[in-house]
């Protein structure tokens, strides 16, 4: 009896085992596909540019803004990019900067900030627009807020110098402005661990605590250079200044300490 029963159970158990193997196999396959997608997006070995850049790479695409358009190049073969899209955004040479964040691009122009979705990386679409007075305006952003400086002078018309914060958490539509503060002549900015570094030209480097992004608090101003843009990389802040660069240790983000300068 026992033998018969065992015989009876065996094939059943076998099927269960086979099914289990199949599940495991399917799971591994799915995981592998997931990894591949991930590597396309984040593991790809790209560096970090500043907020005033016109070139940026997200995933395996290079995005370039010129005066009026956003150009998309596929980097499927990084050595030989292929142009796959051009999107008209502005007129009269108004587009100036591009900043990538996850599946979005934030584009600064002389009269607006554009939020672009790159959920389909080959075909960027405008998701939101925040219009403001005519001025130059680089952008940095995270999930919730976009930080924008607007400035006048040189090639930038208008008559305002300020730091603006827009709530971009809603995604589509026109982001609402939740904060504004007058500045001297702000250029690029960099975001790092709840701290925002704003290059305020000859007035210095302003460090804001942005734990509450809607309410940045100025914690210190570093002087001694004319600041144009800065890039936080790990615990180092690389700043583009008039005549070269200066590097700060930002392991204490609220208090940048000069490490070195590269000039002449």
């Amino acid at each position: 009896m026992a033998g018969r029963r065992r015989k009876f159970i065996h094939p059943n158990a076998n099927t269960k085992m086979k099914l289990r193997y199949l599940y495991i196999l399917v799971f591994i396959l799915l995981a592998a596909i997931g990894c591949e997608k991930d590597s396309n997006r984040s593991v790809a070995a790209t560096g970090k540019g500043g907020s005033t850049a016109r070139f940026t790479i997200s995933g395996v695409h290079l995005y370039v803004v010129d005066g009026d358009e956003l150009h998309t190049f596929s980097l499927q073969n990084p050595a030989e990019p292929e142009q796959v899209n051009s999107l008209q955004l502005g007129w009269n040479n108004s587009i100036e900067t591009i900043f990538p964040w996850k599946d979005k691009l934030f584009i600064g122009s002389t009269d607006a900030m554009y939020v672009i979705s790159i959920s389909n990386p080959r075909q960027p679409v405008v998701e939101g627009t925040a219009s403001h007075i005519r001025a130059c305006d680089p952008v940095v952003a995270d999930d919730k807020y976009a930080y924008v400086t607007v400035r006048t002078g040189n090639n930038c018309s208008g008559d305002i110098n300020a730091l603006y914060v827009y709530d971009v958490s809603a995604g589509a539509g026109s982001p609402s402005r939740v904060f504004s503060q007058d500045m001297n002549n702000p250029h690029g900015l960099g975001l790092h661990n709840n701290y925002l570094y704003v290059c305020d030209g000859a007035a210095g480097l302003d460090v804001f605590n942005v734990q509450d992004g809607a309410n940045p608090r100025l914690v210190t101003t570093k002087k001694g250079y004319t600041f144009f843009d800065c890039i936080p990389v790990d615990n180092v802040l690389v700043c583009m200044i008039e005549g070269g660069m200066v590097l700060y240790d930002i392991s204490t983000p609220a208090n940048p300490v000069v490490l070195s300068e590269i000039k002449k």
Partner: protein
Amino acid sequence: MYAEKAKPSSVSFQQPQAIENAGKIYVKDKLLYQVENGKGIHVISITDPSKPVREGFIPIAGAQEISILNNSLYTNTYNDLLVLDISSPENITITKYIENAFTLVSTVTPPESGYFECVDPAKGMVIGWTKKKIYSPKCKY
């Protein structure tokens, strides 16, 4: 300003040069890149950020922008996209060149509105604009 426009035939990694017209910056793998506006790219090692070491200079006419993926460096020579393989600095090669990929330098009007010297295509390609006193200008925007 005008220049003869031509596809660069080769690009080389040269001795470090002085930073004169400091441009945009880019960081990747302990290397810091700074554009020398209109002239090329400075390459600086920041393995020890308190002691940066100037590694060299990549001359590229008209350069303003830079981005890197893996071993490919993307930059512009005026309005053309230039892709360099930088896997071995002593042997930089051009892997792709796309003419007129974008319009980073307006060849029609200067960046600031006002009177300007009309563009004369016979003089070559417009590579930039300078401010100076001109008499009875005919062009304005």
